[in-house]
């Protein structure tokens, strides 16, 4: 297909759009190389001192590790729940499947603050406040809707005739699932995993509600840091986070691209 020429007006508009979205990054990057003790823009001198400071900040590193572990676990459990749940709801279509799907994805529509408050009350009752279990469950509640949506959509676009063909060739429902459905669903699963990971990794509000001395995620730790001090350390951390997120997205995109070439 020939690409249509893009009008200059559209180009200018697009450029402004990008500028608006990227402006924070454009300011944060120079700021992270600042040599000043306080955040000021433009910096009076440049150095790597704040990157080095991150390396020496045990609290921040602990929080980062905790966030990665939390997001990974949340992702794995999400997929383990979302794949069978979508399969049951889409393929078996029990009575009220639509209602169940709406219920499971409802947290997407609730303001996080409402959800946070509700979870705070529930977790406090259950004695899970400020525990890893508590924060894990909270993250699961907000990320599952994403995983479920993505996988359910992917599943509903798979041609059912292919699964039927496998059945007529002698494959039991279990074999059909593992040999046919699951491989064809892989791109959807990878996308859902990436989304779960990033949403969990990025989550601030719920983590603030659930956090405690042993269970502080990276965004919360950064938030606390900014509250007490105004040095450019946060800028350096932000740049590292952007790079980390970008890496995740690129890895996913690559594997998704790969998956596409062998599925389509």
């Amino acid at each position, binding site marked *: 297909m020939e690409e249509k020429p893009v009008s200059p007006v559209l180009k200018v508009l697009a450029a402004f759009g990008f500028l608006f979205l990227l402006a924070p990054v454009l300011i944060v990057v120079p700021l992270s190389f600042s040599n000043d003790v306080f955040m000021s823009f433009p910096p009076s001198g440049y150095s790597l001192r704040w990157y080095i400071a991150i390396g020496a900040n045990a609290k921040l590193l602990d929080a980062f590790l905790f966030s990665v572990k939390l997001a990974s676990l949340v992702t794995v459990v999400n997929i383990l729940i979302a794949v069978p749940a979508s399969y049951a709801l889409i393929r078996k279509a029990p009575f009220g499947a639509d209602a169940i799907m709406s219920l499971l994805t409802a947290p997407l529509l609730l303001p996080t603050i409402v959800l946070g408050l509700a979870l705070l009350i529930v977790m406090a009752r259950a004695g899970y406040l400020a525990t890893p279990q508590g924060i894990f469950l909270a993250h699961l509640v907000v990320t599952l809707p994403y995983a479920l949506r993505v996988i359910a959509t992917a599943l509903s676009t798979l041609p059912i*005739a292919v699964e039927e*063909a496998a059945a*007529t*060739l002698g494959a039991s*429902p279990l074999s059909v699932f593992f*040999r046919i459905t699951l491989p064809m669903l892989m791109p959807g699963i990878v996308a859902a995993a990436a989304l779960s990971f990033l949403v969990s990794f990025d989550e601030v509000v719920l983590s603030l509600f659930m956090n405690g001395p042993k269970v502080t995620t990276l965004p919360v730790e950064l938030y606390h840091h900014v509250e007490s001090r105004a040095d450019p350390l946060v800028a350096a951390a932000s740049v590292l986070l952007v790079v980390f997120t970008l890496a995740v997205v690129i890895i996913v995109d690559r594997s998704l691209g790969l998956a596409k070439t*062998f599925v389509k």
Partner: protein
Amino acid sequence: MIHHASTATNIAAPLGNEAKPGHGFLSLQGLSKRYSEFVAVDAVDLDVNQGEFVSLLGPSGCGKTTTLRMIAGLVQASGGRIVVAGRDLTAIPPFRRDMGLVFQSYALFPHMSVAGNIAFGLEMRGLSRSEISNRVTEAIALVRLEGRENRRPSELSGGQQQRVALARALVIRPSILLLDEPLSNLDAKLRDEMRTEIRDIQRRLGTTAIFVTHDQDEALTMSDRVVVMNHGRIEQTGTPEDLYERPRTPFVASFVGRTNRFSGTALGRSVKLGDTLVHSATEANGPADVMIRPHRITISTGSAAASGGQNTLSGIVRRMTYAGNLLQYDVLAGDLTFQVEEATLGSGRALAPGTTVTLSWSAQDTLVFEAKP
């Protein structure tokens, strides 16, 4: 696939002397499918012999696919029985039915190679590696796809994908091969080739085949027997010749082959069409539908005298269409317009509109159906 015959007799024997139909290798007995109020398939009875090639032919929505999917077990029947080789399969799930189904959309496994697709059914049957590889090689040769074993389905043309689908269904040596409009996504030339090829392979392997189509040419040229369906019911079952020469209902007469259709009043062995009286070979009385095949009418410029049993009408050519192998005329005779077809002979005789002509056909080519009240 032959071993089913022996199981057939073994299993069928104790049941003993079953009366009337139900003796086919595949036997559908009062098979029905209802979707809430709507009856998609209505008490279909059909017996198919081993090695037979039977087509289900009918207009869109008449229940062909639903019937086929019930045989495969992909749709649960609402009533009736499906018996194969004496064994009642009605409640058996599809993966234990041992049938090969070729889908209109091919439904190949996109994440597997050609060889992987074909091997799948054999792997599900737990055959040994060497056995699988032998049979896959054999099947690939059968559908002439040598050298393309490692391609993905997306890297094949439509015709090649069709062949993979066929090989995949045949390699398991199914008791019955089911095909749902397998040729409808191919272009005309390839469709002709595949018709012959499917029929050849089916004959060579002796596979029993049920072929769904809405294309009457396909049904007539490929099948041992054709089942014409309409509104979920069987209109008529018979050889292609039966259906064409001896249609039992006006629907079959007009659906299979082209036809002139008039309504009139039957008076014994003749029918009054407006002011015209034509002769027929069947006894009928009262209001009737009358059909005459366009190519059974002879068109001539001379005023041929009526011979015994012959119908003769004179008329005027209103329109002439040249269709390569055929000349098609619209001829006005009295107040009736006849379509007439004549094979082109290369001699270049084409009658211009306005020519006065004589139409004649024999009495047995006048098909008369008493109109149902």
